[in-house]
């Protein structure tokens, strides 16, 4: 039974042709490893983007995000070209040609002006940038903290685990708005400070518990044992094996943190507790402060800002849900 007719080239079949040249061994090994890794990374990005694009929920969310991003980018352009700085500045601009403020939408002021004479559309667009910065900084802080803490808690167990889990319990139990209010009483909380605080709270709070539970499932996998037998140190196991398997989940929760951050900022600004110059929440605060909150006739004072908050929060949430289906293949519809 020794004679082979056609040695079956199993598994090599359809996938993966063209990525690594099938030339002589020496030739192929001359392609530097980092180049190959880059190519593999690119391939995996393409695959994931493809998966993401199949989900209409994610695409809608992404579209909204892109819309607001464009708004944020368009603002400085408009300020430099079409808009008169004195009139359209979101914080100190004022239109002296108008008789009374707030004034309804006109050709010059597409969304009207606020009680202080500032253009609403300009405020909206300018704030979009801050909201993004806030959201992304908070999300990054959360993800870094939650991933490292979650992985360490799961890996080491014992005292470290107890410590971080109890900390998480305390944070989850405490209404975070209260914490933020107290903080703003203690020191000046601007946008950046707020982002860091939210990031830390979320990072040591619920997110870390979720990531830790995922890390626990990774920790008991056989390939971790195999890595240990190969001689891997704890550091190697955590950072080269466990954390890479946590990243999809971390990335997912980043989206939810952005939502939470934007919303928290809106709430705090509404109460006038933040030291920021302009934001959507602050726009609503200005409306309230001037007594126009319940004045539906002056809809442009509330709706643009609150709808923007809702829309951007929802957008990130939808993207998060779409990512969830990629990260958890079981949620996929087939």
């Amino acid at each position, binding site marked *: *039974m*020794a*004679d*082979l*007719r*056609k*040695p*079956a080239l*199993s*598994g090599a*079949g*359809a996938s993966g042709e063209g990525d690594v040249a099938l030339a002589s061994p020496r030739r192929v090994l001359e392609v530097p490893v980092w180049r190959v890794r880059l190519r593999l990374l690119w391939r995996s990005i393409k695959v994931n983007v493809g998966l993401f694009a199949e989900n209409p929920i994610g695409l809608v969310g992404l579209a909204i995000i892109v819309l607001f991003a464009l708004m944020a980018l368009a603002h400085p352009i408009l300020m430099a070209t079409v808009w008169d700085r004195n009139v359209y500045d979101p914080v100190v601009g004022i239109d002296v040609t108008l008789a009374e403020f707030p004034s309804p939408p006109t050709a010059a002021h597409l969304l009207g002006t606020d009680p202080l004479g500032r253009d609403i559309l300009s405020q909206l667009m300018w704030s979009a940038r801050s909201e993004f910065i806030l959201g992304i900084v908070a999300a990054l802080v959360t993800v870094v903290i939650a991933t490292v803490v979650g992985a360490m808690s799961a890996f080491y167990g014992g005292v470290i685990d107890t410590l971080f889990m109890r900390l998480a319990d305390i944070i989850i139990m405490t209404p975070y708005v209260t914490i933020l209010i107290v903080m703003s009483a203690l020191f000046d909380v601007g946008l950046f400070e707020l982002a860091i605080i939210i990031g830390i709270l979320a990072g040591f709070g619920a997110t870390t518990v979720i990531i830790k539970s995922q890390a626990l499932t990774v920790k008991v996998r056989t390939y971790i044992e195999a890595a240990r037998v190969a001689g891997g140190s704890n550091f190697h196991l955590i950072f080269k094996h466990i954390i890479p398997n946590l990243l999809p989940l971390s990335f997912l929760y980043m989206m939810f943190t952005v939502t939470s951050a934007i919303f928290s900022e809106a709430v705090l600004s509404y109460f006038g507790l933040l030291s920021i110059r302009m934001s959507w929440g602050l726009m609503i605060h200005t409306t309230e402060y001037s007594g126009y909150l319940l004045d539906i006739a002056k809809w442009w004072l509330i709706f643009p800002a609150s709808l923007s908050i809702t829309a951007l929060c929802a957008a990130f949430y939808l993207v998060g849900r779409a990512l969830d289906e990629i990260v958890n293949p079981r949620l996929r519809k*087939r």
Partner: protein
Amino acid sequence: MAENVLRVEDLTMHYTTRAGEVSAVDNVTFSLAKGEAMGLVGESGCGKTSVATTVLRLLPDNGKILGGHIYLDGTDLVALPEPEMRKVRWRRISMVFQAAMNSLNPVYRVGDQIIEALETHLPGLSIAENRARVEELFKLVGLDPKLMDQYPHEYSGGMRQRAVIAMALSCNPDLIIADEPTTALDVIVQDNLLREMTELQKRLGMSMLYISHDIAVIAEVSDRMGVMYAGRLAELATTVEIFKTPIHPYTIGLMSAFPSIVGAKRELATLPGEPPDLLRPPSGCRFHPRCPFGTEICTQQVPEFNDHGSGHFAACWHPQRSA
């Protein structure tokens, strides 16, 4: 000649996946006589479990029967509408799945689960009558009837398997399909269970279809056996016949690759390559890429499933006459 309780004719079934159509079962034909124990042997992906789920019409959403017939005592199950099929399942054909631990619901008592099956398929009996039947079944499979009121986690692996067999027997089916019934069990427990299943089968005169990847198990429990490869039946004959004079090169290869603790220690043959991808199966005979006897015709034409004498079927262009 005993009449056939099951006759499968040219059964073909595909799974539709993202990547394409998977040809899981292709023109499979065999029959099972009343009171007979038949084995279906093959490696993973050969289609043996697919045949079982197709016979029971328990295909997932993406599975579709493309052709063929499944005659259960004359009725074609392929054409049967679902409500009718529901009456057939469990009452006429029942199945013992692999890893029975997963077939038992952990939050219900084992006895209650069997009673539920009875109530669903044989309604009209009182609780007392059903309980009596469960006791009877437990004794039949070698379980202490007192265990009826315990939960699955309180049972050992072997006991759980027996409970699942009891469930399969509960409605007095004509045919039981056992898919790898002992794979997850220790060897001594496996031996025990196989002996009891064989004895039970003979005593009740039941027909059984055993599915396994282990030819030793099939050798011991089945009167007839079929060897499946890549969705097709390679060979079909009585067990003794197949072991004595295997015809299909795959069967020969499989047997010489199987280590045994009895007899002289011989060198184990290796089968080169791997089982084919059923998304793009090889043309002609699906075994040709690995077959040492393959020729031109094997790559072009699907070999016919012919009788090579006294009911010994094989699908090969170069059947091996000697053992």
